[in-house]
């Protein structure tokens, strides 16, 4: 086991507590998706990303795009816990005047590199960031987390083709492959099961990992970083709602607000 895993595990628990609390207080949000990527977000923000919370616009920073913008509570929690802004902002999620919009908005929230929300845009925009980095001779990486249902969007495949053709080796995209989309199982709604195969056909470097295993996540990122010519896709097998027993793999938590009792139960389960 990597030595950093216990700390990352504790950090991910903190983010999951934040997510459930935020959505409870806000009265709206997508807990299932946020919990699904909590470990990926933790690995990125507490181990991998080269960012400076005191200088969020640092030109040479690594970029991150949350393509599945509806999972933003866990993103905001990570930014707050990394000191991009005060933790006290978290309960203001989705409230009038809050810097924490219902979906991520750059220039409103410190540390958010790109506005997202309508699905499919992380990879094409990330490709632009990666191409700009190459032009500027900066060595930053651009990371994207996209959903699996989100891959239904055609623009994903437009960008899959052009990013590979442009040899954007510093673009690294995760697919949060929890197997669900809004309307049900992906296998029932839209069909794509072998996600890596079409990306590989377009010329991407692809890997498949357990998206809740920090050792696998970090190993995969290092392999992706070492790939200089091909953009990288890491299919992270995840569990929607991961970390809270009664939300795991239950799609009713796609968009649902925990009651006070549910919040208490979740916090109890997630305590350190």
């Amino acid at each position, binding site marked *: 086991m990597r030595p950093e895993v216990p700390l990352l595990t504790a950090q991910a628990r903190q983010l999951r507590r934040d997510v459930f609390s935020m959505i409870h207080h806000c009265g709206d949000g997508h807990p299932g998706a946020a919990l699904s990527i909590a470990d990926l977000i933790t690995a990125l923000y507490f181990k991998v990303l080269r960012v400076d919370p005191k200088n969020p616009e640092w030109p040479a920073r690594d970029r991150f795009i949350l393509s599945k913008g509806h999972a933003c509570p866990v993103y905001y929690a990570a930014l707050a816990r990394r000191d991009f802004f005060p933790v006290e902002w978290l309960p203001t999620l989705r409230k009038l005047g809050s810097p924490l919009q219902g979906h991520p908005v750059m220039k409103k929230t410190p540390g958010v590199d790109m506005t997202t*929300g309508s699905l499919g845009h992380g990879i094409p925009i990330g490709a632009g960031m990666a191409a700009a980095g190459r032009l500027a001779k900066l060595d930053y990486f651009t990371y994207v987390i996209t959903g699996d249902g989100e891959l239904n969007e055609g623009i994903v495949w437009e960008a899959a083709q052009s990013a590979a053709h442009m040899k954007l080796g510093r673009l690294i995209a995760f697919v949060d492959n929890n197997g669900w989309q809004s309307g049900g199982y992906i296998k029932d709604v839209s069909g794509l099961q072998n996600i890596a195969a079409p990306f590989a056909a377009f010329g991407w470097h692809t890997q498949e990992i357990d998206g809740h295993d920090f050792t696998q996540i970090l190993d995969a990122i290092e392999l992706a970083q070492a790939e200089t010519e091909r953009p990288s896709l890491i299919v992270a097998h995840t569990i929607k709602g991961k970390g809270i027993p009664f939300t795991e793999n239950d799609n009713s938590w796609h968009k649902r607000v925990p009651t006070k009792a549910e919040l208490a139960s979740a916090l109890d389960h997630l305590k350190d």
Partner: protein
Amino acid sequence: MITAMDKIASTREGFIAGLLEAAAADPKICLVFADSLKAARATPFTEKYPDRWFDVGICEQNAAAFSAGLASTGLKPFFNTYAGFITMRACEQVRSFAAYPHLNVKFIGLNGGIYGGEREGVTHMVFEDFGIMRSIAGMEIVVPADAGQARKATVAFAQREGPGYMRLGSGREPVIYDDSVPFEFGKARVVREYGTDVAIFAIGPILKRAILAADALAREGIKTTLVEVHTLKPLDVNTITGVLRQTRAAVTLEDHNINGGLGSAVAEVIAEQEPATLIRLGLRDVFAESGDAELLFDHYGMGTPHVCDAVKQLMRRK
């Protein structure tokens, strides 16, 4: 009627000439294509700046989103392809990822209006772009009247912060202005000032027809003021209300559906600020068809005689 005797020049080439000027002074300027490099006549730029252009292939949504990614790092991308494919196919990417974050992406739409789509047919024309882009918050819109103005407008546009849309034509636009005429962003230009009987507002290369109409009317003793509104947004409301106050009657002429474009913009000014009668000339909520652009304009009610008739109608209502 525009005839073979008229000098023709390309607004596309005017844009590239202007971009070369701007790019020499600003290393952040770059070009994005959706397999549109040839259509954009952009080779002079791509040869001079081989690392400052990107072609993502035939996928405009991807190109617009990719441009937003470039711009998020401080680059100033100009995404250049067919106007209809930018404003309709990639509308959401333009709105949500360039305009909403107020990024420095400039969208350069070729083949705008009937002037663009002649012979290609309706799929390659666009008569809706003004209306679509005008409704996006913070989007600036410029429509140069000829090639020389396209060059100068591009230099001016490159200085603007934030998202912008410039509509260009097919490459066979009549030359209207002498090369000494400057381009001032955001400022409507009085082109003819015969008198205050009726105002004529025109936008884009079709301005040529409005000039012919104003001159013909003057020969009949009808004295118009002709204003070129090359910057559709932000609209030069001061100049427009100033002219309306004198004429209390206006004709608008645009290579666009009468809904949503210049006619609508002037109607809004009339309704909110300066009452006047108005006739909007443009496509009257119909689709055009293939054919020579000049013949199409005449066929769809955007000819010089139509402008003259509209002015006379408004005179009778006075």
